[in-house]
């Protein structure tokens, strides 16, 4: 899951990036409206944390431009402007949630998780998929009730597949959602991660569709039945 943080205050931005990375997200950061708009418009983010009082380009304008460009990723506005008029304007511009500063990091993470989950059409914070259970709150994965230790990248990959459950995800798409923009992308590393995940979670959990990419096994399918 790749998150964009658009925030001009370095203190808040640093804390957000740290907390989000600790929560198992890949994070890009922009410190003004122009840069934020460009990133959000060109990179495939799963969610955006957007400040309103930004240099160069105001947060509301950035959001309105994204929406008119047809960008549908969930956007959480994080701002010190806490009057209702500003909240209504934020939602009318296309925001999906609104958190006023000062905020509690835990609350922000919970709301962000809920947004990502909602946009993926999932009902619960715990994604269950056959024998697999992924708790997005604690970033823990268990297989048949037993906890499995995963590295950050392995977790990011399995969580993304879980959110896109039932759909075939290409290696390029996986790369885009797992690495931040500065990473030297090599889609071969994806194969390495998939191999490690299969070793830890069983071969059947991740299905390879030749020439297309990967998908997570269907919730209804028994692991034994899959090819």
């Amino acid at each position, binding site marked *: 899951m790749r998150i964009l943080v658009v925030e001009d205050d370095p203190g*808040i931005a640093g804390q957000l990036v740290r907390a989000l990375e600790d929560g198992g997200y890949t994070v890009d950061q922009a410190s003004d409206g122009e840069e934020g708009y460009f990133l959000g418009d060109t990179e495939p983010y799963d969610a955006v944390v957007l400040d309103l009082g930004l240099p160069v380009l105001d947060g509301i304008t950035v959001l309105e431009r994204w929406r008119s460009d047809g960008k549908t990723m969930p956007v959480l506005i994080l701002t010190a402007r806490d009057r209702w008029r500003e909240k209504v304007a934020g939602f009318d511009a296309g925001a999906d949630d609104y958190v*006023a500063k000062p905020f*509690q990091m835990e609350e922000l993470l919970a709301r962000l998780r809920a947004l990502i989950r909602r946009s993926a059409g999932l009902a619960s914070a715990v994604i269950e998929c056959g024998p697999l259970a992924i708790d997005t709150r604690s970033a823990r994965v268990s297989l048949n009730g037993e906890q499995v230790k995963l590295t950050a990248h392995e977790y990011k990959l399995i969580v993304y597949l879980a959110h896109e459950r039932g759909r075939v995800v290409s290696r390029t798409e996986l790369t885009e959602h797992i690495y931040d923009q500065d990473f030297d992308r090599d889609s071969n590393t994806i194969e390495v991660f998939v191999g490690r995940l299969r070793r830890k979670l069983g071969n059947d959990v991740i299905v390879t569709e030749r020439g297309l990419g990967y998908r997570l096994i269907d919730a209804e399918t028994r692991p034994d039945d899959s090819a």
Partner: protein
Amino acid sequence: MLRIGTLTARLVAVAVVWIGAALVAGGFLLAALFEAHVDRAFDRRLDTLLEALVAVTDADTGAKGVIRVLGPQGDPRFNQPYSGLYWQINQGRKIRLASRSLWDKTLTLKDVPAVSNTEGVPVRRYEAVGPRVQRLRVIERDITLDEAGPVLRYAVAGDLAQVDAEFRPFMVTLIWSLSVLGIGLITAVMIQVYIGLRPLDHLREALGRVRAGGAERLEGDFPSEVRPLVDEANQLISHIGEVVERARTHVGNLAHALKTPLSVLANEADRGEGPLAEAVSRETAAMQQRIDHHLARARTAATAGVLGQRAELAPVVDGLGRALRKMYEDKGLAIEIICNGEGPRGALAFRGDAHDLEEMLGNLMENACKWATTRVRITAAPSADGRLRITVEDDGPGLKPDERAVVLARGKRLDETVPGSGLGLAIVSEIAGLYDGGLSLDTAALGGLSATLDLPQAVG
């Protein structure tokens, strides 16, 4: 008529004094002129009678000659006893002949200096007491009937009551007509003052509309004398609005400036451990609460009571509804909005600042969404006494009567675990109070809490 109090009263009072004085002075002048005229006419008549008498009297030569009246005496009243018209002919102090009307009485002739009458003939003119104690006017001339004869004093006297009899009806007419004229003039002045001061009445009505929230500035056609005042007032009203807006912007900037570092501090403290982190955590939370509370108060206190404010209810409620449906999308709440204005629903408006209305309704509606299980209902309608009544209901757990008082107390929150600003209902109650309104809590028909705002309604 005296609707503008002392101003109308002053103008009318001055007019009454001035008109009264002018009419009284004019009345006295007219009366004096008429009296003099009547007096002169009476004198001339007596003079004419005297000349006629001279013409019909004859005297034998010699000092002791007999004086005789040879013809009619010019007026029959000379022959009626005590008729009020008399003549008497003296030779020095001695009475030679007198009119029959004098009967057994005589006139006492006075030796006053002679004056010229209208034809330049010297006459003596004075008043005397008549046979019936009337006041008489006496006209007397010295006549010598023949060159050798004695100087005879011909005196003709008339009752002055005749002058009065002519003068009195004139005075009655005069007083009556001047009074009518006076009343007419005063009425005209009052109408003039009323019409002249009507722009001030209009100004007051326009100000009333602004105060009632029906207009944002003074509107209407005013004469050029009042126009500058209206323009000044309008500028003042818009200036106040600008000052308030500026103050609010500054307050907002202060809030933004404080909240971001506060967030950094709080989040750092949450990550750390030990007494310092705990203290920072606790104190930043307290600072946040206090900033929220006082900023909310300052924003509101700056706007309550400013003239010319009006906030349409429907757009505010609709906007909040849109935002809250999104915020509580997970709960799938049904948010129902019923704005029962008279006529179109846009007719309902709050007499006050739109920001304050948004804060009050936003907090109430968010609170309802937070606790509701499936439904939230917002009902707005004018009350019987012309105020705006907005009820926000939910189907959540509601509050017991003793909890309701606690929740309205400043800065209190019943359940610290449910996220929110922590001011919620208390600040709503405070803002409503600044507008002479109030917040009351009850059990909703839907089963949960019902919060009713009572606010001043903008009319017109």
